[in-house]
């Protein structure tokens, strides 16, 4: 805490800068970091490394797919609990654990960080922050690099911990306005081979509280800013004319989900959030770029350059942002193998674009859609999905063996109201209305979409929403967690559920696979449903919901 206060006051570096920097490096290197954290080439090879899981969605391509084949359709029925871990925190778990050389790093709703033995779930070290929460309490994970564990906090800090010991290395407030900006995303380490610069890519959550989105590259050594790219163009920039007057200043378009990178072309693919005020379109007539868009940024130089963008929902008035992290893959369209990028939004659409040009290939509505072109009114009106419906941030996965995209979706409807005007009150939602009231049944499904045609291979219906993302294994399985708490394994070809396990918590986190000593594990976090609460969820014995838990599964002994 003392260091954090010092840094806030800007006096952490009393010694000349050069000295200070080397002190930081020395701290980070306290124990040989080569074996504690992955290096730049490990990140480039992350997709084919079945033992480790070093980026939130496995690799830079954003595809949660593992080469591991030990667990397969014929033995998955024998999968059983290897260990559980109960963090000492409240609130939902939305974390993508980061796993490297037998250590698993897990974050909890209030920014606790735990380093676990990945084979046993035993705590190696823990760090508890409990920052001041301004809005949603969630942490989606850490970045692992340069001997450190990096994570952003709910009060806008970027913090580096020694990966071996959990000691704090540095801590810096890196958001511009702590009244409306905070972090939930995991920092993504990247090494730019052209400039030789190492960086952490981190987007800010500020898209419902009156901020203006950005993605920032921070120096892993000290948290200083290498570059910052604003997601809403300012005066004089192309696209600013899609915002009347000064509305761009609080335009939102937060970059809060995940960063997908094509290292070959040094292209960063980002999905950007909803425009603001969320539900009052009348004050911001226009397309409101680059809200609800995917952007492709050239990050090879000193500053990012926009290559192309595709706006999924121009002038959104329902907070239907494309929150699924883009998946970059090579898939067959017709008979042609093409470089593609897939995405999904909360309006319930799954999109496939050409990764090089940004041209639309196919668009599949994957959840129940209703009355999507009517803006919320003072009296209110119905539309589907609800803000927490459609495709959620846990995203989907691509299977090259079947040329299939697996995406979980939710059917939820809402009653939306707007207000006459949107007033910015620091620290509160900046909505011009209210988040929708849930109406009707809340259900979900697992979708298998044929990339060649954009048509479903199969769909599995659940009587509860299905938030848990997708993990595809080379052995022909797709794992996904249901909000009700069931972790399920489907046959990629048939959609049959081959294994199911009740974790005892509600699942709003993605599933991952890793290996320790050659043995394959599957891991998923669950806990209270929090902001995703719906009336249909089974009553828990505790008022705040089930306790958070991380569950790891394995075959045999």
């Amino acid at each position, binding site marked *: 805490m003392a260091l954090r206060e010092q840094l806030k006051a800007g006096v952490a570096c009393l010694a000349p800068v050069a000295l200070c920097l080397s002190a930081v490096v020395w701290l980070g290197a306290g124990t040989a970091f080569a074996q504690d954290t992955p290096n730049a080439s490990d990140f480039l090879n992350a997709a084919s490394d079945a033992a480790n899981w070093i980026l939130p969605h496995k690799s830079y391509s954003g595809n949660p797919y593992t080469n591991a084949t030990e667990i397969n359709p014929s033995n998955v029925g024998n999968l059983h609990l290897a260990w559980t871990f109960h963090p000492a925190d*409240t*609130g*939902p778990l939305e974390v993508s654990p980061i796993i490297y050389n037998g250590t698993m790093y897990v974050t909890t*709703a209030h920014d606790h960080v735990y380093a676990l033995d990945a084979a046993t779930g035993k705590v190696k070290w823990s760090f508890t922050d409990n920052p*001041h*929460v*301004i*809005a*949603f*309490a*969630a942490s989606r994970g850490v970045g692992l690099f340069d001997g450190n564990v990096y994570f952003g906090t709910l009060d806008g800090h970027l913090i580096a911990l020694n990966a071996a010991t959990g000691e704090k290395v540095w801590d810096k407030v890196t958001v511009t306005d702590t*009244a409306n900006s905070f972090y939930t995303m995991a920092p993504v380490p990247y090494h730019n081979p052209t400039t030789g610069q190492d960086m952490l890519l981190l987007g800010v959550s500020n898209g419902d509280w009156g901020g203006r989105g950005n993605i920032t590259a921070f120096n892993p050594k000290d948290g200083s800013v290498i570059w910052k790219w604003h997601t809403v163009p300012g*005066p004089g920039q192309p696209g600013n004319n899609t915002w009347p007057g000064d509305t761009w200043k609080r335009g939102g378009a937060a970059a809060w989900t995940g960063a997908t990178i094509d290292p070959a072309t040094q292209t960063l693919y980002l999905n950007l959030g909803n425009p603001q005020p969320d539900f009052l379109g009348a004050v911001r007539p226009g397309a409101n770029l680059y809200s609800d868009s995917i952007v492709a940024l050239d990050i090879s130089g000193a500053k990012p350059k926009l290559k192309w963008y595709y706006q999924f929902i121009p002038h959104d008035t329902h907070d239907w942002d494309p929150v699924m992290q883009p998946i970059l893959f090579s898939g067959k369209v017709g008979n042609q193998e093409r470089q593609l990028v897939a995405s999904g939004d909360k309006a319930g659409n799954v999109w496939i674009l050409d990764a090089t040009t940004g041209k639309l290939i196919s668009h599949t509505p994957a959840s129940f859609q209703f009355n999507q072109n009517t803006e919320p009114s003072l009296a209110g009106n119905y539309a589907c999905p609800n803000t*927490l419906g459609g495709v959620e941030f846990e995203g989907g996965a691509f299977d090259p063996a079947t040329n299939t995209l697996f995406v979980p979706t939710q059917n939820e409807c809402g009653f939306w*109201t707007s*207000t006459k005007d949107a007033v910015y*009150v*620091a*620290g*509160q*939602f900046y*909505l011009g209305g*209210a*988040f*929708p*009231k*849930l109406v009707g049944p809340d259900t979900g499904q697992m979708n298998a979409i044929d990339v060649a045609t954009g048509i479903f291979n199969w769909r599995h219906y659940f009587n509860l929403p299905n938030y848990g993302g997708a993990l595809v294994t080379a052995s022909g399985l797709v794992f996904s967690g249901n909000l009700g708490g069931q972790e399920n394994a489907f046959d990629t070809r048939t959609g049959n559920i081959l294994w199911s396990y009740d974790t005892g918590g509600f699942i709003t986190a993605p599933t991952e696979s890793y290996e320790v000593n050659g043995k394959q594990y599957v891991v998923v976090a669950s806990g*209270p*449903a*929090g*902001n995703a*609460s*719906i009336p249909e969820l089974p009553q828990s014995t505790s*008022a*705040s*919901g089930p306790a958070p838990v991380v569950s790891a599964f394995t075959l045999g002994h």
Partner: protein
Amino acid sequence: MRPIRPTNQRPSRKNGPAAFLLLAALAGTAVISPGARADSASDHRAGMATLTDLKAAITSIVQANDSFATDRNVYHRASQRAINALEGTHGPDYRPAAGTPGDALGAIGHIDALLHRKGTPVWAAPLDSAEANMRAAAAYLLDASHARSLIRFQLATSRALTYLEVARGRPTEVGALGGMEGTLANTVLGVPAGAAVENGCSRPSSAPSYGVHGGYLAWIAVPASAGTHSLGETSGGHSLIVEHGVIVLPTAAAALVAKACRTHAAATPEPAPRNTAGPAAIPAMAIPTPANRAPPALYTKAQAAAGARLFAVTCVACHGANLQGTAAPAVAGTDFLKTVEKNGWTLEALRYLVFNNMPFNAPRSLSPSQYAELLAFLLASNCYPAGSKPFPAADDPAFAQLKLGPVPGPHPNANQFGVCPTG
């Protein structure tokens, strides 16, 4: 008479840990209390300097507006200079490049220095108001300082000017609407250094002299002999009384003082006469002052108990049984009050959020009286006292003037999170 000594007791408005309820009637509640008498020359100088800086800010904008310049830098610079005159060199928005028509402390700096003391002189309330109005003006001036077109500059500065004019006020008015001019004309703050001060309940025994009672300036006496006699810089008088070879200039506070003198009750609070002369739009612009510092009772115990039961069903999933938040923020105690203070939330801001946005997944799904019960529960949990009047189901415009914050005083029953029990 107890001299007023500056101490560190009075927290500064900006960072103060005890910015609890800031509540006051619009016209300012003038209270004549015994013992509050300041005749310090430095107070007077600070008061005058405040007015000078304030006028300089106004002039800067008016001149730019009158210049018909086509260069937008002229307008930007004028706005920045006005900010500099208001905030002084330590202000958050001070930019040295533009220069300042004011002094280093700036109008707000002078007021902060004046208010930084134990006790509450009668001029504290109107000065607090003037400061709040100046801060509001500075916010608009900041917009004006990077306005992209003349029309935007004019829109922003016309708003700023309205606030500044209220802050400047007029000498014929006592209380919040009097602003700086009214305060200097009608309170001891307007008595120049070294002037003879007499009992404002009597007529002058010498001239020149200043008649003071309970911190208010009732009259100024000028010798009726031939020659030029200097007056206080501003004067709220309407009439001249010539008696016993002296000219008496009763101030706008004279009637207030006379009433207090008549009842021999310097200790009894007397409200100031309500202003009826001002244009209708102005009172709404006057920002209320912390005249009444006791936290008001805003709800009943029964309401809070009903609210507690509702909370346990509709809110607990996201805000936790201990109110510290699980998936959402804390809604009571030290951590919640941090948000409240940092963002300067009023009761209206909190009320709006709960009535319109909560529960997050089913906003406006409860009845107004249920929402009122929840507000009662939240106030009780934040250690606000219960009373006999229930929290209203309908909106109350006064809530926009009620600043929330930690309730002063010990709360022996509060738990480790700073949450008070409601039982």
